[in-house]
């Protein structure tokens, strides 16, 4: 069916040049006057056009029996879904906002959220969120059993971390790289000291010994670089040199841990809620990144032993569920360590999570390395860079920008997976919420729903935000790639 334009088009007869009426097949035709630029018919634009294209187009094909059936089905489903969405969303809003109890001025606690039948003041059949409960438990949900006097330490850690992260993420700020490195090295040490209280009992002997070892290794490395040791041993010397720097770093960290900053020591058993969730997730990602990179390089290596071992390691951790890893870590780790070495529960979980996450990280990095044009490797070789130099200067920087969306996605997954530590007895966000449900002083029929709703929203906000950031980064990287 052709549609008539509502505004009348000027007739062809207004053309000045004499043209036979059948201009179609006429060779030698020249247009004198431009055809007018007309607005599109209503079915294309505006409200009706939008409505048609987006809703009714899929239900208006009645050309054949099957098409008609499909149209009816689509129309019915659309109505049903609309009904469903409207009822569920309005129900949710009602539960969370409109019918919810917002305050408990008389300090009645659970009674504030009881219906008349149960002994309270609310009308029977009332069923909505009890926000005073959350208010009372908020500190527990966010900090766990962390002593109130020392909450400033947690807040400082949060603020510092957030500030530095924002600095790294915002394009226009200078010194992003330096802040990034600080964020990955100095910040974790600081955070550990702030949160635990520092002042671990590390003997000066250990620190001294480590320093001496580190210095020795560095000297060997220097000798190797200067050419006093040749051949295969020269390589070993260089590796020793790098290890030496790591040992020195380790000694420095130990030294900082040993200093008494006069902070109250707080056992990790007292940490809980969002604090634990963030600690586990962030530590997992930060610690698994270097390990993952090494594994990815190893898996792509030409040395069969390295390749085999890395592949086995990666496939093992990717093939088992996280919950079994956590069980293994909490139950078996003490067995693996020599007698007397006692592992903090949280530390066990962190180790398990790190190893687990390193395997997934390795696959993400490997994908990034594979995506890099072979020419880059060849170019680096041609310029005369050694393996490690080319990796450090050319390949890895490119690969890492490639894989940032993948890393963020892994982080989102890890963030959600941290909820599993509640099963092995560590109070993360979910665990903290669950334990608040045991508080009899607030026992109401809506206690569970309110608590879980809050936790769900917190998780959703974090995860959704991160996924949006990941999509944003992906788009940016794609654009820069095309140009």
């Amino acid at each position: 069916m052709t549609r008539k334009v509502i505004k009348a088009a000027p007739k062809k007869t207004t053309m000045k040049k004499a043209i036979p009426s059948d201009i179609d097949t006429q060779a030698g035709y020249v247009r004198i006057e431009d055809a007018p630029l007309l607005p599109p018919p209503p079915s294309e634009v505006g409200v009706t056009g939008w409505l048609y294209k987006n809703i009714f187009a899929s239900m208006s094909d009645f050309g054949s029996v099957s098409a008609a059936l499909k149209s009816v089905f689509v129309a019915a489903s659309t109505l049903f879904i609309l009904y469903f969405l409207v009822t569920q969303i309005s129900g949710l809003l009602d539960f969370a906002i409109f019918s919810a109890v917002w305050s408990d001025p008389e300090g009645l606690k659970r009674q504030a959220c009881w219906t008349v039948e149960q002994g309270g003041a609310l009308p029977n059949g009332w069923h909505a969120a009890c926000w005073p409960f959350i208010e009372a438990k908020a500190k527990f949900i966010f900090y766990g059993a962390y002593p109130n006097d020392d909450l400033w330490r947690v807040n400082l850690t949060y603020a510092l971390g957030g500030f530095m992260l924002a600095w790294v993420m915002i394009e226009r700020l200078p010194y992003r790289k330096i802040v990034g490195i600080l964020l990955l090295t100095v910040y974790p040490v600081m955070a550990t000291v702030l949160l635990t209280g520092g002042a671990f009992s590390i003997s000066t002997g250990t620190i001294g010994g480590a320093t001496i070892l580190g210095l020795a290794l560095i000297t060997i490395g220097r000798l190797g670089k200067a050419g006093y040791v040749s051949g295969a041993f020269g390589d070993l010397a260089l590796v020793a040199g790098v290890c030496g720097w790591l040992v020195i770093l380790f000694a420095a960290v130990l030294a900082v841990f040993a200093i008494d900053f006069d902070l109250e020591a707080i056992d990790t058993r007292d940490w809980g809620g969002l604090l634990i969730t963030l600690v586990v997730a962030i530590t997992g990602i930060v610690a698994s990144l270097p390990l993952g990179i090494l594994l990815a390089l190893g898996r792509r290596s030409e040395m069969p032993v390295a390749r085999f071992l890395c592949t086995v390691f990666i496939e093992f951790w990717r093939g088992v569920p996280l919950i079994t890893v956590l069980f293994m870590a909490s139950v078996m780790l003490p067995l693996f360590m020599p007698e007397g070495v006692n592992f903090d529960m949280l530390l066990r979980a962190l180790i398990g999570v790190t190893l687990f996450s390193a395997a997934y990280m390795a696959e993400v990095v490997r994908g990034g390395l594979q995506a890099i044009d072979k020419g880059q490797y060849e170019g680096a070789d041609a310029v005369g860079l050694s393996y490690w130099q080319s990796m450090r200067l050319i390949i890895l920087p490119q690969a890492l920008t490639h894989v940032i969306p993948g890393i963020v996605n892994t982080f989102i997954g890890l963030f959600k997976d941290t909820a599993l530590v509640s099963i092995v007895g560590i109070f993360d966000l979910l665990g903290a919420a669950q334990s608040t449900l045991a508080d009899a002083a607030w026992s109401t029929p809506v206690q569970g729903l309110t608590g879980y709703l809050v936790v769900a929203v917190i998780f959703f906000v974090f995860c959704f935000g991160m996924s949006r950031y990941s999509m944003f980064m992906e788009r940016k990287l794609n654009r820069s790639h095309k140009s």
Partner: protein
Amino acid sequence: MAQPQNTAEQSVDQKTIVSMRNVNKWFGQFHVLRDINLGVDKGERIVVCGPSGSGKSTLIRCLNRLEKHQDGDIFVHGIELNNDVKNIDEIRREVGMVFQHFNLFPHLSILENCMLAPIWVRKTPRAEAEEIAMHFLTRVKIPEQASKYPGQLSGGQQQRVAIARALCMQPQLMLFDEPTSALDPEMIKEVLDTMVELADDGMTMICVTHEMGFARRVADRVIFMDEGQIVEQNEPEAFFNNPQSDRTKLFLSQILGH
């Protein structure tokens, strides 16, 4: 000029293959085709040229309903092009199209690419479809590639396969949408030669292209489009040597300048 018939009946000796009257099309607010009037007789070869964004591709894509026109009438081989699915199906059977990016089916062999439409649209038995496919593959001069896959062929070979694939439906009209624009220079000639042969055999074709040599050699009419309207059309000699409109002159100077 016979009046276009508004039925689904095919009229085999229909002289007018394409008839477009007062056709307008919009993409959202953008008026992409303005008052198009065009008629193509059987056996005619039309070349459509113009600057990018002038609506040339949109014009020919309206002819097989890959784009929908919002105003005006289009008749192809006597059948009206409207929302009626039966009409659209019939028109698509009679019109073949060759795309800029070939659009061969990568998971099927060359032979299967060519046989797909005859088997599933015209319900041809398999042996006959294979015969037809080999016939046209021979005509585009690559019968030996029949069992290969599109990924194994060069660009020029792929485009020739695309032409053969369209021909296997034995259409009344062939549409070419910038068929050589995505090819490396050394492969353009083989495709153009194929198209010239096709034209010499009497196929009605409408070709959107920048290859002016081809237009001179083959076209009965050259149409120049700009900003959605047909600005000038003429026989190739007259068109290239004596362009009437200023816009045509400008375009030709840009295209033939190098």
